[in-house]
């Protein structure tokens, strides 16, 4: 069973950010323990993605604290987040379509040889190794990722997070563009990463996936946190009513 008594792996405390007078995230506090999957739920525009982008360094919060293992950290850009072993798999996959799998996997963190020149052969060899583990059927190493299927692209994005030893993983609707078989692959991978002690924030719309994959669920509405519940103590009906009505079920308080 998960131990939630120690220091959380991540704590986002009292976060706020607004765009042009609209409070996209309004005093939200969520936390995440090692080996835990916390689902972030809510309608489109509820502020889930915005909140998570403060952690991944894409946005800078107007107010609030980010604590990693109990220590406050300053995350101003994606590089800072990566330095804290935070990896993000974005909804839009954030791949450069014109580059091949290895170039995407190592984008921003290329392996270089003597003289600072790119070591493409080494990068391809490393990519082959990690893909052999994640998606053994993957063969298209020398074509631009635009030529890959949704699942293949997703495995490149996931490989990027796994390769660099993420401790904190953010997944923004990782199965949205995938077929049933590929969705199953991602589900198994999440279980495996969880067993390795990673903490995962999972933004997810499909309530069945939430019930299956998540330990806790934090629901947001209009930029505010409705509440955080233990998935095992509530029904999917409870969570749906939190999303739609913004009401927290009495029994899980």
């Amino acid at each position, binding site marked *: 069973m998960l131990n939630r008594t120690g220091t959380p792996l991540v704590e986002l405390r009292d976060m706020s950010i607004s765009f042009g007078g609209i409070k996209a995230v309004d005093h939200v506090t969520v936390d995440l323990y090692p080996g835990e999957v916390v689902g972030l739920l809510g309608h489109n525009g509820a502020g889930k993605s915005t909140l998570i982008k403060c952690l991944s360094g894409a946005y800078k919060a107007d107010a609030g604290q980010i604590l990693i293992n109990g220590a406050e950290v300053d995350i101003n850009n994606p590089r800072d987040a990566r330095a804290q072993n935070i990896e993000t798999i974005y909804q839009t996959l954030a791949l450069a*379509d014109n580059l091949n799998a290895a170039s995407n996997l190592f*984008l921003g963190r290329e392996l270089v040889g003597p003289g600072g020149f*790119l070591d493409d052969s080494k990068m391809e*060899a490393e990519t082959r190794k990690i893909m052999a583990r994640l998606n053994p059927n993957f063969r298209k190493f020398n074509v631009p990722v635009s030529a890959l299927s949704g699942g293949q692209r997703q495995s490149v994005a996931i490989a990027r997070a796994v390769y660099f030893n993420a401790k904190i993983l953010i997944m923004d609707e990782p199965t949205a563009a995938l077929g049933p078989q590929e969705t199953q692959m991602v589900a198994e991978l999440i279980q495996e990463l969880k067993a390795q002690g990673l903490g995962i924030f999972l933004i997810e719309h499909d309530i069945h996936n939430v019930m299956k994959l998540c330990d806790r669920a934090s629901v947001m509405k209009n930029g505010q946190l409705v509440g955080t519940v233990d998935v095992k103590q509530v029904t999917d009906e409870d969570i749906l009513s939190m999303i739609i009505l913004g009401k927290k079920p009495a029994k899980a308080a």
Partner: protein
Amino acid sequence: MSNTSHSPATQSAPESRFGRFLRATEIDPRLLGMVGALVLIWVAFEAYSTFVLGRPSMLLGAAQAEANGFLTPRNLWNLSVQTAYIGIMATGMVLVIITRNIDLSVGSIMGMVGMYMGLLQIDYLTPALGLGHPAIWGITVIFGIVMGALIGALQGSMIAYLNIPSFIVTLGGLLVWRGAAFLVAGGKTIAPMDDTFALIGGGSFGALGRTGSWIFAAIAVVAVVWGVVKSRKARTVHGFQQRPIWAEWFMGGLICAVILGATATVNAYIWPKGNIKKYYDQLGMAVPDGAEFGHGYAYPVLILIVVAIFMTVLMTRTRFGRYVFAIGGNPEAAALSGINTRVMTVKIFALMGGLAGIAAVIGSARQNSATNAMGNLDELYVIAAAVVGGTSLAGGVGTVYGAIIGALILTSLQTGMVLIGFGDGSYQRIVIGIALVLAVWLDIVYRKRIK
């Protein structure tokens, strides 16, 4: 056999022999198309001059002194010099266009930098150092490149940090720098340039000579062979499948043949009698019987080659180049990967400006003067060269060698039209305009077919 590791497993229709050949050698079919177009243009001009105008052709056995078709050492040598400065700027324009930007100001930057270089030489360096001082050319060149780069960096900063579209910033630049070029000397021409500086522009004295050119070619051939061997080794180390050995050596051999052929051609262009006399006069000697000099590679062409190698390495072997492609492919992904896209934009425009500075050096050295009209409309030829060379305006796709071949195609059209008697600028523009649209259309058709 030829089923190399990178081929997609789902190759439905059986491949033609030609298709297999292309895949084994990894030749981009579009490169083949560009080279084909270039050869076609050359042969067409030669045929027109031979059969329609009845001029003697070297291909039909005429002597070099009589022949004045397209395919003569003299014309090809001149073509190489005229391609040089457009080609140099086109290699930078590739980066600009790959990152979904445009730079309309390069011709004007050339004009203004040229004027300031002339001013620097005549008004400051010559009085301070003395006429013909050996440091003058070096200082002027560095000044020109730095000035170009600073202007580029200024424009790049406005695009990156003020979020003004590059089209607008550089359209403004086109007007501003051209206006400034006029004001530098109140519209007057500054001449002559320093003698050593003028050599950078080419000419009989501004070339490598026969021996130097053969040494240069030999080094290049050795480098090609070394490159082939080294790339095979790297693939062996990681256990990747090799390209077929015949394909590897076929490509290496082809490149070496082009190098040697080009060298023989530029060496075959002999000095005019007047220059030979001038050469011996300077030595204080009489002209010996049978004195003959070949030009060899002109300095502007050597500069183009150095720039091309530098830019190719930059684009394919460094992080900087990888980030240029990444920004072009998906700017958001690049930023989320921790790439500082704003700093990259500034650097790319600074590089473009620096290359315009080099072009200004070559241009003013070649004219042996600085005029405020230098580089007028060249931005359009530079953009056209990059686009004809396969750079996609949608971003993310482009090669340095493609841009240089594009520049060669456009310059061939330009000089060829003059050669066959359509020297009036209007015909040139019509032909180049049509060629540009045609090239882009063919590229679109090709891309659709491979999808």
